[in-house]
């Protein structure tokens, strides 16, 4: 158990800056997800925490102190990779016992801990089988168990569920969360899958092109994104974004959407948009909040379009409404909607996020 501090960390590979001036405090026992698209610097950040890479500049502290132990294996760090790193020529039992055998723990203790961990991970029936004969799903369980059994202070996981099939992924998500509650280790979890980050982490750090975009609790970054990038990366389906030009005439504001349509803006939203650095703004709203048909309210934004695709995601239906300003996804009141139908969608003002198109920053952000 250990807290981790990254202070002004920068990592360069030649001319390329992989991580730029990163500041992040990870509390003792916290489950932190590093989330971002391929190439955002999340794995480089984790490799620096692991000691596999060293920072070009900045400080990395464990419990407020620089790492003293010279050798990586003495730092108490556990690792699980996307490609399950297990010894396929050894049995499950030998794999689990490996770190304890290396540390020359007494045999009775090894047996006890291996059996307990195998039972914990529901692989006790496989203990004496060759690891290479297991299914991909079980191999990843062995990899996680093999790291966890060493009781590292810090557990680093790099896309550990990416290679698993969808239904097993959902199961392992819940398992990992329960494991972390039991072990109370500090966990850093790298993923490009926002559903994994949302469901597992205490806090999510979202990165883009080497920069930290926002850190916060899952629902915090979902409900209150600091910028367009975070709004777009978190949440499923992806948030609707409508870009346009803000026009104010005689006290009334409207938005000239890209594509031609002009929509009038309710007062609070207009006030937020007015803070933009230029007249280019972006209106963001989650598909879950968009309603089919006008609600006859003064506090709604109406956009007209035609239903292009009906997408079925588990128990819900998402209507993709083609409008001059792009596709608006709508999830409320679309049970009987069909493809080809003309549809007006209503965006409630209270659910609309206002962004500055030039900087990407949120204009109605509730900062901390």
């Amino acid at each position: 158990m250990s807290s981790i501090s990254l202070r002004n960390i920068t990592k360069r590979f030649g001319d390329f800056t992989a991580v730029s001036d990163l500041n992040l405090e990870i509390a003792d026992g916290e489950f932190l997800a590093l989330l971002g698209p391929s190439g955002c610097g999340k794995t480089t950040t984790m490799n620096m925490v692991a000691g596999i890479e060293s920072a070009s500049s900045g400080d990395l502290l464990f419990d407020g102190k620089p790492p003293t132990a010279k050798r990586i294996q003495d730092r108490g760090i556990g690792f699980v990779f996307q490609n399950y790193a297990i010894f396929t020529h050894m049995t499950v039992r030998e794999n689990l016992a490996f770190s304890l055998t290396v540390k020359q723990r007494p045999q009775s203790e090894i047996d006890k801990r291996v059996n307990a961990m195998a039972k914990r991970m529901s692989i006790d029936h496989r203990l004496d089988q060759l690891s290479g004969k297991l299914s991909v799903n079980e191999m990843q369980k062995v990899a996680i168990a093999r790291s966890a059994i060493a009781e590292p202070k810090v557990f680093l996981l790099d896309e550990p569920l990416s290679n698993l099939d969808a239904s097993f992924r959902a199961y392992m998500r819940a398992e990992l969360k329960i494991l972390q509650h039991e072990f109370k280790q500090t966990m850093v979890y790298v993923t490009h899958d926002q559903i994994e980050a949302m469901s597992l982490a205490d806090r999510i750090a979202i990165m883009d092109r080497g920069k930290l975009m926002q850190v916060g609790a899952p629902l915090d970054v979902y409900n209150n994104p600091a910028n367009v990038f975070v709004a777009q990366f978190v949440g499923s389906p992806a948030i609707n974004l409508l870009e346009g030009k803000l026009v104010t005439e005689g006290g009334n504001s409207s938005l000239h959407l890209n594509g031609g349509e002009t929509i009038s803006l309710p007062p609070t939203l207009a006030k937020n948009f007015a803070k933009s650095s230029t007249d280019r703004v972006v209106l963001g709203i989650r598909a879950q909040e968009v309603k089919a048909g006008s609600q006859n309210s003064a506090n709604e934004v109406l956009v007209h379009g035609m239903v292009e695709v009906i997408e079925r995601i588990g128990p819900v239906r998402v209507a993709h409404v083609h409008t001059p300003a792009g596709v608006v996804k709508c999830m409320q009141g679309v049970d009987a909607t069909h493809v080809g139908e003309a549809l007006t969608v209503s965006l409630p003002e209270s659910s609309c996020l206002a962004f500055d198109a030039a900087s990407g920053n949120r204009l109605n952000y509730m900062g901390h």
Partner: protein
Amino acid sequence: MAKISLQGVVKRYPTFTVGPIDLEIPDNEFFGIFGPPSCGKTSILKIILGLVVPDEGKVFVDGTDVTTLSPEKRNMAMVFQNLALFPHLNGAQNISFPLVERGFSKEKIDKELERVSSVLHVGHILHKMPAQMSGGERQRIALGRAFVRQPGAFLLDEPIAALDARLREEMRVELKRLQSEGNHTFIYVSHDEEEVMSVADRLAIVVDGKVLQVGTPDEIYNRPNDVRVATQIGSPPMNLIQGNVNGTGRFEAEGFEFSLPLDFLADKPQGATTLGIRPENLAIGKNPQIGSFEAKVVAVEPLGGHTIVDMHAGKQTIKVRIAGQHSYQDGERLYLHPDVQHMHFFKPSA
């Protein structure tokens, strides 16, 4: 543009048999083939394409028997997960390759290239080499190469599985649009149920080399005919509870029980059964009511638009999906109320 039919198709491998399989895929349908890894779905695709000749049964395209016809004579295009692009050719050259091979004139190739690039929105990446493209861009070029041939059917084998999660969501809607706008027959293989359920007009669920059910996504989701279908579809999958329906209308599971309406039970068999209920068909309440049972919160997954709550009842883990955002404490004791309208009864598993 092609109607495909499989009749009694069987293919035997040393340790595994696919079939017998009967499938009718009409013209212009987006047909999904879904199943867990190594269930035989890719073999079915290869039989349709002609890469594999079945040991028994026949394959028809537009009513013509093509069972022993070689792949290049079937006029089908295949797109693989590992996009086979030529690394030394740019986007335009990769797309037009099949036409150059067939000796088309320069004007005709340029015209085709223009048509395909406007459909796929790839005009701006035609000059790039594959190494300079993003995963999504490479995928589009690979599709372009399939589209340019104007095949009768497109066979897609996990075409977007290697892409980032967010990009996958965009690409699957894009594929659906391409298929419906162009009136193409698409046969789409995937092990991601959410993906295939969101794009397919109809799909086949394949487990252990056999087709367990064919239907629209709604039919498969709401009326699974087999417990294996029920648990493969849905994320999280359907909860299965082993138990026993007794004579007084109570469902008894290990460590908990609840009552079922007697009129509802009138046409249901009594005795040992497996009850299936989807995570969204359980309500969470603070107080007990008729038909509810007590359960303990073990984990909460806040996903923004909805929340997934893992609960323990007896020794059973039950997943519940609720729309919107909710907070529950770990260890909190609450009452789960299953919706009888959405209960499925399966034969008890061995």
